[in-house]
């Protein structure tokens, strides 16, 4: 059952607000410390420096603190399964609306906290090394500090998202992570991904925010429906009222879920709002790993899981969500096959995997979805970070070349393009091995983490929604294929560019987090093995989600998916490594697939379609409204021509014929008479004060006399 609203004596539950405060303190320190140091230096002639190490250390400590707090929650939950609600302050109390800043600790939120803080901390540490080089390649050392401020901001917002006790507080985090994502995608806002001055990165950032806003629109409408039919935003109250609503107005419940799905589609990059995520790769790689792979994009999955009591009540809702997720999974996988950018492949892969998760939670397989969320966080973060390591390796190689004999600095070099790579396993052994582990996990090869979680989703699908099962299986096949393609292209064969030949391995501060994540990716599956007695994760989530259907291992499903993954890998080997690619050679898939591959390569032209049919249309509409309707018609024509001109015309009419012709003549007669009279009166003015005074006195006497005679 859902837990009742008891604040138990769990000793560490009270600490949970600090999971938000810690990163906020961290970011405040990082914002103000440089200014403070500068001030100190000026005032006391000291020579302090707020170094990059200090920045990174503060930010990482803040992130580490959240991990500690999350772990403490885990310990407390071990004793008090029911969790706790920790109130902090009142927020909006108006009329029937009562919203508070309340934190919620239960197994679901703690799972998310652990994932976010754990992966987050590792990525903070990784970023210390990564950004150190990145800011130097891009010639703006000053932005190092800013990066960690944004990263801490993200952690804080994400923690609000996962630990809020109401839909509205979740929404605060929801938008907060959107903001952090906007800031970090646009981190190199004055260039494109290749470092050339351009609007590209800032456009990508804007696109992410606005697309998310479209999703937020759905979230808001769902919120309004929830509040008007269930009278609250607080989770427990809403869930308690849900069954009644399902009975009375099933169509409203369906509407709620559909609008919520729009929100999920925005944040978790599902059809039709996934378009922002590939562009979001414009952000530095740690950002792609943390926000656009491991944590933020899974917020939608978390939302559906959190709203399980609502979604479970409507079979139609489950059907819609599962189908959307599954179609996204397959659709994105096809695009991933046709990409050349190492991070773009991973981005579409992320969309695809998110499709798996959404499909899972849509089907009601919440544990499977959350399980996949966790394992995916490990291996996708790993893959992204390794990709970042690869990119840095290439940058180093390129840099080495540019400062060596070759002086072709002007040549634009894309360190993320897989066509420039090849044979990197020799230059970057650590990165290669961890990348392999990540790939195996993602492809779903036994016994890596991805195998267990994906298998559980497929199993659930095969039981409840067969069409979802088939779509997802196809997607799984493509997953193994494009990952194979990537690994063969990047690490095997011969170097297709001199930079790849001179690539260098990354320093320890970058590789150590990779190794930790690799270990997690390899072993993460063991927290929920499909054997009786090993469903630890399922039982853990049961405390929050209620009774859960536990499935054993179905050898048919597992066998088919593993077999397909192996076949796909072999197939990709056949295409890409049997005859390794050479520099400038077109993709071997291009010829057999023809137009189909052009579609994959160009993301099925969805971006172009959106640009043309929605964005340009809106821009034109607003230009039309602004220029034609508002300015030319309403402002210039109506107000200036019609109103002002007619008014001027009227006044002119009044002035010339009416005033001069009629009124003026009349007044002339009057004026003549006045002049004559005043001529007479003028002569009465002698200019002697005495005479004036005397006349005043005459007046006074007369009035007094009048008073005496008349009044009384």
């Amino acid at each position, binding site marked *: 059952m859902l837990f009742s609203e008891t604040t138990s004596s769990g000793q560490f539950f009270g600490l949970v607000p600090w999971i938000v405060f810690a990163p906020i303190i961290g970011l405040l320190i990082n914002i103000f410390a440089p200014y403070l140091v500068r001030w100190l230096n000026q005032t006391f002639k000291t020579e302090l420096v707020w170094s990059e190490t200090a920045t990174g250390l503060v930010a990482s400590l803040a992130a580490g603190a959240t991990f500690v707090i999350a772990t403490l929650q885990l310990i407390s939950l071990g004793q008090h399964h029911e969790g706790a609600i920790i109130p902090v302050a009142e927020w909006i109390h108006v009329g029937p609306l009562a919203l508070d800043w309340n934190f919620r600790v239960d197994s679901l939120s703690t799972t998310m906290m652990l994932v976010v803080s754990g992966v987050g901390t590792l990525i903070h540490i990784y970023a210390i090394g990564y950004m150190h080089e990145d800011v130097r390649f891009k010639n703006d050392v000053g932005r190092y500090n800013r990066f960690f401020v944004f990263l801490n901001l993200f952690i804080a917002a994400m923690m609000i998202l996962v630990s809020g006790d109401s839909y509205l507080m979740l929404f605060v985090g929801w938008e907060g992570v959107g903001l952090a994502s906007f800031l970090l995608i646009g981190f190199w*806002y004055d260039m494109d991904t290749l470092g050339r001055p351009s609007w590209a990165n800032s456009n990508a950032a804007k696109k992410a925010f*606005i697309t998310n806003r479209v999703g937020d629109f759905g979230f808001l409408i769902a919120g309004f429906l929830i509040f008007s039919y269930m009278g609250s935003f607080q989770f427990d109250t809403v869930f308690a009222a849900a069954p009644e609503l399902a009975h009375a107005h099933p169509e409203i419940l369906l509407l709620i879920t559909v609008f919520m799905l729009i929100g999920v589609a925005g944040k978790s990059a599902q059809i039709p709002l996934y378009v922002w995520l590939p562009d979001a790769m414009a952000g530095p790689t740690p950002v792609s790993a943390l926000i656009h792979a491991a944590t933020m994009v899974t917020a939608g999955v978390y939302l559906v899981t959190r709203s399980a009591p609502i979604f479970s009540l409507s079979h139609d809702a489950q059907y819609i969500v599962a189908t959307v997720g599954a179609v996204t999974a397959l659709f994105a996988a096809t695009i991933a096959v046709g990409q050349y950018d190492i991070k773009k492949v991973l981005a579409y892969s992320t969309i695809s995997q998110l499709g798996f998760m959404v499909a899972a939670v849509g089907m009601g397989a919440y544990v499977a979805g959350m399980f996949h969320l966790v394992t995916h966080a490990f291996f996708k973060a790993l893959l992204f970070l390794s990709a970042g390591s690869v990119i840095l390796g290439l940058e180093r190689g390129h840099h080495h070349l540019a400062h060596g004999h070759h002086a072709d600095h002007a040549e634009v070099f894309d360190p993320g393009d897989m066509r420039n790579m090849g044979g990197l396993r020799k230059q970057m052994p650590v990165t290669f091995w961890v990348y392999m582990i990540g790939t195996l996990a993602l492809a779903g090869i036994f016994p890596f983490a991805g195998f267990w979680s994906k298998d559980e989703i497929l199993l659930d699908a095969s039981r409840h929604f067969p069409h979802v099962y088939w779509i997802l299986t196809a997607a799984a096949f493509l997953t193994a294929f494009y990952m194979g393609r990537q690994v063969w292209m990047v690490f095997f064969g011969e170097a297709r560019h001199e930079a790849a030949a001179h690539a260098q391995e990354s320093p320890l501060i970058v590789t150590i987090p990779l190794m930790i994540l690799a270990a997690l990716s390899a072993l993460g599956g063991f927290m929920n093995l499909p054997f009786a007695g090993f469903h630890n994760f399922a039982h853990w989530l049961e405390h929050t989600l209620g009774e859960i259907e536990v499935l054993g291992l179905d050898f048919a499903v597992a066998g088919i998916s593993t077999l397909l993954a192996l076949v796909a890998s072999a197939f990709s080997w056949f295409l890409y490594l049997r005859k390794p690619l050479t520099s400038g050679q077109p993709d071997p898939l291009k010829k057999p697939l023809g137009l189909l591959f052009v579609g994959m390569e160009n993301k099925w032209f969805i971006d172009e379609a959106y640009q043309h049919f929605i964005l340009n249309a809106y821009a034109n509409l607003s230009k039309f409204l602004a220029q034609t309707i508002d300015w030319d018609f309403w402002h210039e024509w109506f107000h200036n021509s019609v109103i002002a001109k007619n008014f001027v015309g009227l006044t002119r009419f009044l002035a010339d014929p009416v005033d001069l012709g009629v009124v003026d003549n009349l007044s002339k007669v009057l004026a003549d008479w006045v002049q004559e009279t005043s001529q007479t009166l003028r002569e009465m003015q002698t200019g002697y004060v005495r005479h004036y005074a005397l006349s005043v006195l005459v007046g006074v006497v007369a009035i007094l006399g009048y008073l005496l005679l008349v009044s009384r």
Partner: protein
Amino acid sequence: MNFLFEPLTIVTFFPLLGVLALLLINSEQKTAIRWTALVTALLAFVISLWAFFFSGQYDVAAPGLQLVAKYDWITVAGWNIRYYLAADGLSILLVLLTTFLTPIAILSTWTAIEERVKDFMIFFLMLEIGMTGVFLSQDLFLFYIFWEFTLVPMYFLIGIWGGPRRMYAAVKFFLYTMAGSILMLLAILWLGINLDTFAVPELIGKVPAAAQMLLFVAFTAAFAIKVPMWPLHSWLPDAHVEAPTAGSVILAGVLLKMGTYGFLRFNLPLFPEASIQAAPVIGALAVIGIIYGAAVSYAQKDVKKLVAYSSVSHLGFVMLGMFAMNSLGIQGAILQMINHGLSTGALFLLVGMIYEQTHTRELAVYGGLWKIMPVYGALTLIVTLSSMGLPGLNGFVGEFTILLGAWGAGSGSYGSVWFAALSAIGVILAAIYMLYMFQKMFLGPAGEITKHHPLHDLNWREIATLLPLLVFIFWIGLYPKPFFDLMSPTVDELVKLLSAAALR
């Protein structure tokens, strides 16, 4: 003589002392003039805080008018005009907003206004008197006098210190507002003659239902132009673009609120039946304004114009909430008035700060400013986010409450689901034009101005100008309870009155 020592008289007329002091200062001594004006405005703010919170005479938790100053004024020939100042939950926040924004606006003119500083400051303080008077008058006649009085200083502020087309803008501003107010004056006279009093509290519930519609329309004419509601917004971009920065701040921050406040103070309680009948129309206009303002903003090439049109959108939210006629909507509307004053005021300040350096407001010539002006960029970002309603900042609390009210949550509402849903689209559109503005100015490669013009980041005075606004942006966003507490008792009474009228 006692009326002089009423707290609200002091609150309203205190800046007059500053005006007198300024008259005695040689107009060449600009620094002394600026300091005098600033100190006067600050003292006025302190006095308003004192009157409401520390004088012990204002009970925040109680509904109804308090701190009443009620004296006969013109009582000849059957007229019953009073000097009647009082405050309640509807006006207190707006009065505080006025006294709060005035010193900030004055501080923003420190280096921006160099010519005829003395006249500028005198007009500015006079303007403050007028605005405070509008929010405190409980007598229709007195209200009308203050209402028209604000026009004069604003006219000169635009007409003397404005941009190139200042005379056109000033005259347009004056005439439009005048045109609306004349109808209102007729309605006020009708009320005063037929019902024998001009005092609003005495008029509540007395206006015959048959006459309400006409009166409602007459009042609406004045207020809708001031707000401005679509499609009567044509004067706004002109006035904003031409006005000096401080003028824009006050225009957007306070003067527009006089319109929405008018609806709240007069239209709703005096003509409840008519208001209920007119609610769908007003709601529809508000929704059109929200969408239209947002769309038009997006196409602007001039930053200040963009912000000006965004006001049309934001005030659409206020109107929508108000004519939802439930406590959520109305409280949200009042809070949104404050929010708009803070956020848009701050935006105008920010635009003014860069304009002072570059003398251009063309979006196209900027770009990449964040790199050169990090503090300016960060502050603008926060204000931009507040303006587009990011949760955790003030704009969200207002907009969300309004939308929820308009949706018809809770009892006794006349909102429509469709209005709220369409307005929620405005939230998306707000993100589009606000981010567009932010991107074109701060992100991207360095633009012409950024490359070739020597730019410096904000100095301490400019930061000090913005800081108080930022404090409230966060405060309202995170902990709006004190603000809601100020208004809720009065709003509850108003909602009761409206729902009683609905049953009739």
